[in-house]
């Protein structure tokens, strides 16, 4: 039995705005074992990034974690005091953001930033810190790390900057890395390089990884498990093979069917009608109801996230069950 690193239970993160309460994350649960890669997939506004921020304790007002537990090796992070959280954040749980320029300080050299990161959590002398920083840069495939340590962030290309951000996340050999769309802004060939490095490192170090993305096909090649989010809730979760080859939820199925390569060339693409509902005016019941081809009167109540098949859960009253397949 693999070691349980993270257990998220009924997490709710709400934003209390003037216009009303936005339930950005509403009753989200999942678990993560050592070395496991979870893909958290959803469209903009689905709450996938806020889930990541909530685990890290980085939700700013007017938002706050309004309920649920985030258990890191049995400790509830949601109830932790800031100084205790600071000992975990960045050290045991690290985060990588979409825009590495948000992680990196533009006026400090890379070595300063990396050594600072090390010294924030450990008593370590400069020479040792520098050696670890150099090794981390080498690990993520940055050529001539000794020289690059002395460079400033603007002297790196976008892909290299993201590697530096990953190297910083890896400095303390964390148990868990939360990666929020880290390759979305990169070119295909550079994305390929980063995915290759990440895949290798996770495998070598046994780090658990949450990969947040809107792109199911990136997750398909990288993750063990997938959780699909829609309007703040997980609507389907399971192994990559189960979710992508046998999607149960009409939304997941719609997403997969609308990918161009899944459609005959030049023919109209399968499309999900309508658009995501405003987070301020979520309809009661299933939030996907208005766009769903299988909606029925019973969908006006909120379905639970039930394991209909072993290891494969779905939040739907009328899922695409194998025997009911059309």
């Amino acid at each position, binding site marked *: 039995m693999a070691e349980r690193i993270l257990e998220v239970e009924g997490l709710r993160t709400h934003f209390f705005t003037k216009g009303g309460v936005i339930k950005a994350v509403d009753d989200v649960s999942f678990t993560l074992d050592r070395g496991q890669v979870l893909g958290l997939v959803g469209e903009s506004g689905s709450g996938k990034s806020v889930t990541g921020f909530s685990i890290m304790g980085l939700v700013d007002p007017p938002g706050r974690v309004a309920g649920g537990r985030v258990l890191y090796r049995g400790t509830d992070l949601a109830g932790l005091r800031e100084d205790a959280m600071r000992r975990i954040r960045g050290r045991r749980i690290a985060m990588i953001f979409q825009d590495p320029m948000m992680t990196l300080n533009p006026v400090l050299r890379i070595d300063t930033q990396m050594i600072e990161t090390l010294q924030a959590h450990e008593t370590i002398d400069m020479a040792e810190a520098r050696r670890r920083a150099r090794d981390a840069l080498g690990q993520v495939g940055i050529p001539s790390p000794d020289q690059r340590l002395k460079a400033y962030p603007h002297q790196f290309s976008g892909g290299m900057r993201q590697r530096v951000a990953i190297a910083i996340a890896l400095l303390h050999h964390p148990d868990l890395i939360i990666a929020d769309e880290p390759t979305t802004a990169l070119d295909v060939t550079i994305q390929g390089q980063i995915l290759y490095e990440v895949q290798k490192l996770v495998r070598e170090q046994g780090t658990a990884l949450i990969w947040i993305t809107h792109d199911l096909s990136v997750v398909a*090649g990288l993750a063990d498990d997938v959780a699909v989010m829609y309007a703040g809730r997980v609507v389907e979760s399971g192994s990559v093979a189960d979710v992508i080859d046998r999607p149960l939820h009409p939304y997941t199925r719609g997403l997969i069917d609308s990918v161009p390569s899944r459609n005959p060339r030049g023919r109209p693409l399968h499309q999900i009608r309508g658009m995501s509902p405003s987070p301020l005016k979520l309809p009661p019941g299933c939030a996907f109801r208005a766009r769903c081809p299988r909606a029925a009167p019973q969908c006006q109540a909120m379905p639970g996230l039930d394991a209909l098949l072993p290891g494969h859960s779905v939040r739907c009253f009328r899922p695409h069950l194998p025997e009911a397949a059309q």
Partner: protein
Amino acid sequence: MTATAAAGKPPIVALEGVSKRFVKRLDVAMRVANMLGSHLREEVVRAVDTVDLAVDEGEVLGLVGESGCGKSTLGRIVAGVHAASGGRMLYRGQDVADLHGQQARDVQLKIQMIFQDPMSSLNPRLRVGDIIGEAPRVHGLVGRRALDGYVDEIMGHVGLDTTYKRRYPHQFSGGQRQRIAIARALAVKPEFLVCDEAVAALDVSIQAQVLNLFMRLREELGLTYLFISHDLGVVEHLSDRVMIMYLGRIVEQAPTEALFAAPNHPYTQALLAEIPRLVATRRTYTPVKGEIPTPLNPPPGCHFHPRCPHVLPRCRDEVPRLKAVAAGHWSACHLNDQA
């Protein structure tokens, strides 16, 4: 010249040896420094380097490349946003540079462009009805009295609810805003649309809706597209023919099926290998080495040679020319001379 030489009819848009250089001129301080003995030189980027292309009427030509390869600059030259620094552009066989006055304006209207981010290409202070109606009114395509009905008709074409005519762009979602941008382009009755990453900023489910709209408009209005994208899946689905661009040059062009079935250029092969596929098998990513070099100082010879797994000595100093490797399939690679 290029792949298509359709029987008799000239292509709707053709570029012949088109280049675009961006020059960063020396400012006063730099010129003074030069007088005092410095050796500062003007920086020149060859964003587009002697490109030939021809698009036939009704065709969808996909243009693919990574950031900085010059695909957007090329699109802007076709749309008339940038003037080319060299070469000719022909519209239905006529050199655009020879046209003046009304004729030049007519050609300009026939080619419209759609950008990636509709929020920055739509005037936030105009109502949707005015955004769509302004150009046809100014150019006298529609009379003042008929304008209202005309705007309704265009909005209907792109699937926008006509009751939203008095709203502002910020009141719409991303997908709807892109529909407004498309409606604005269609309002001047174009024949040719340049779509520059027109679906890149949209969510997956909305992207499918907008791609379907492009395909429907092509059938209904007989439009021709230059479809610029970094997303090979989207380009494969939509295009009849695909061109691959790297550092300002076309490295390969072919009918879509041929290109995806048998990519010839090592760069195309690398690009195709990198596309994340929606297949539930753990895959090992095998990355191409290195990154796109800076266009300020591109490598000599074949621009791809520092990253190419099959590099030959001659690749380092001799620029490969586009040569036919099969019917309609052109590739610029020295390896093809070996066989």
